[in-house]
């Protein structure tokens, strides 16, 4: 069966063993439902972001130097990509919409892990690496949003770098290191471009680790039960079963993604904000500064506290608590299907994050302030209640096999 060429390569790389262990003889539970396709979709979007980004960087110029009409070299180069570069508009819209789609997919992927208990023993490390990936994604998105040097780029970066400035003792130093000066300016743009190129490479590496950590413990399943991975009653081989399922899912996902790219790339100001079509102007603050939708839940947690430092502490805590989530949850049962109390709590948590996101996006009113405060409270209450849950939660009987 092996060709001479493949045999030559195999002898020198062990390619056949790799293909067997990773694909054709790697077992996956056969009862995985459609929520299990989002990891593959996330990998696909990451690759697409890196490829489009490489081509965009061939034309993009990270310089805040002013040009006619109050624009800048950076803003001009983005418009040149949109207007003069062949299919530059396609590259840029795929990349800009891709950022939002990446977060959408990763949030669903995380939600699946939370619902079916994929973060629990023995898969804690996969979850923790996933949280690192989330943080790096947020960083990459934040750096990337500065690059067009529009009003929201500039003021968003100003607000966030000032946040770091409020950290006690080290604040000024961190702020200055981030900005390359005392305010957001040309040096900031240059280092953000550099970091925006670096972070996706880190994502690729840590994403590899995320998958590597999956291999010894195998995929979780909707029932959250331990399966004998050698029993063909329980499992199918990753290739061709899971790969074909994922390929179909990626294609279906692409229909949504490309529909937005070709017919509604700004998504009414949600994916590319209205104010970012105005050139950055350090002398004029936009009436309403809000991050892009995927960062708004954390922005709400930041804003509900009157004291800035407290807000920063809670925003940091809201991300940090994700690291200890696998250890806070002490229940031996994984899937929410068999945990009636946790099931209600985790669904409430998903709604809670959407409420947080909504409050962070709109202008602050009394109503959003109250809603944001309650939602922030629930965000932490969800995690902090987990250790006490096994004391009174009556879990349902687990099935024997799939």
């Amino acid at each position, binding site marked *: 069966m092996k060709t001479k060429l493949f045999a030559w390569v195999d002898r020198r790389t062990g390619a056949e063993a790799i293909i067997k262990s990773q694909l054709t003889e790697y077992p996956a539970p056969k009862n995985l439902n459609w929520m299990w396709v989002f990891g593959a979709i996330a990998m696909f979007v990451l690759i697409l972001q890196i490829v489009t980004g490489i081509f965009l960087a061939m034309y993009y110029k990270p310089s805040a130097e002013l040009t006619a009409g109050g*624009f800048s070299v950076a803003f001009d180069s983005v418009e040149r990509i949109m207007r003069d570069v062949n299919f530059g508009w396609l590259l840029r*819209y795929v990349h800009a919409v891709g950022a939002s789609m990446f977060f959408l997919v990763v949030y669903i992927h995380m939600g699946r892990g939370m619902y079916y208990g994929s973060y629990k023993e023995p898969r804690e490390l996969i979850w923790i690496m996933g949280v690192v990936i989330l943080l790096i994604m947020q960083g990459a998105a934040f750096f990337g949003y500065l690059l067009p040097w529009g009003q929201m780029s500039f003021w968003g970066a100003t607000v966030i770098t000032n946040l770091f400035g409020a950290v006690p003792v080290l604040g000024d130093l961190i702020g200055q290191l981030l900005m390359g000066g005392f305010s957001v300016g040309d040096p900031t743009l240059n280092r953000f471009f550099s970091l925006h190129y670096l972070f996706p490479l880190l994502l690729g590496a840590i994403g590899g680790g995320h998958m590597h950590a999956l291999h010894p413990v195998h995929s979780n399943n909707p029932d959250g039960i331990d399966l004998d991975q050698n029993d063909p009653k329980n499992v199918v081989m990753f290739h061709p079963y899971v790969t074909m399922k994922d390929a179909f899912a990626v294609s279906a996902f692409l229909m949504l993604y*490309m529909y937005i790219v*070709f017919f509604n790339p700004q998504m009414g100001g949600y994916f590319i904000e209205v104010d970012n079509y105005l050139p950055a102007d350090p002398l004029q603050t936009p009436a309403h500064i809000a991050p892009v939708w995927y960062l708004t839940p954390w922005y709400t947690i930041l804003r509900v506290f009157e004291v800035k430092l407290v807000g920063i502490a809670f925003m940091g805590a809201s991300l940090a608590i994700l690291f200890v989530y696998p250890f806070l949850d002490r229940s031996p049962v994984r899937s929410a299907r068999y945990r009636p109390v946790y099931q209600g709590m985790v669904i409430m948590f998903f709604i809670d994050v959407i409420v947080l996101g909504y409050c962070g996006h709109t202008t602050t009113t009394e109503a959003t302030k109250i809603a944001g405060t309650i939602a922030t409270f629930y965000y932490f209450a969800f995690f902090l209640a987990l250790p006490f849950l096994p004391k009174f939660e009556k879990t349902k009987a687990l099935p024997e096999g799939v």
Partner: protein
Amino acid sequence: MKLKSILLSAAACVAMLTSGLAFASGGGMVFKHADTDVTSQAQLLRGLTVFTDTCMGCHSAKYITYKGLMDYPELGISRAMADEFRGDNALSSGLHTELAPEDAVESYGKVPPDLSLVVPGRRGGVDYIYSLLTGYAHDESGRVDDGNYNTYFPGNRTAMPDPLGWLDHDAEDTAELEQQAHDVSAFLEFIADPHQNTRRDLGVYVMGFLLLLTLVLFLLKREVWKDVH
């Protein structure tokens, strides 16, 4: 429960995104509907005329070059027409106003913004532009001078004095002025993203291809999985 509830949450998320669209784009204010067709050469050319005759007195559109006017098939401007428009300017030059920034500040108090990206750069988009051009009125409270009071401008006091002469126009001119406002709105909508027609045309084929691909992959998946129970 199980999967369904997660899908419901996702659906709620999408619903929130879409229901917020009108609000996000309009900023709460209701604008008049702009009757624009960015595929209509006739309308775009009329809009270009309004732009060069009126808007360019004060405003630039630096990302639109004279060469661009020739290259975009929607406009289809001949070399001779482009030469007439550009005068002494280079073919690669953007549409720059003759008004010097310092003169603008002296006359109007500020430098008029570049209009290349004015449609996506304003809440309400093209409807806002049309409403603004036909939104000049007398200030009931008398605080803002005629020509600076606009129903649709945030805060109602605009530095742009009634470019089309909407205020106190004769009733028989209404249709003509509205047409001019529609046309120039269409032109501005077009130049903000001059490949938008190509994008939408191509998008139909892309969606068609993806539909076929998804169908084939669905059948393939079903075939591969048919012996799994």
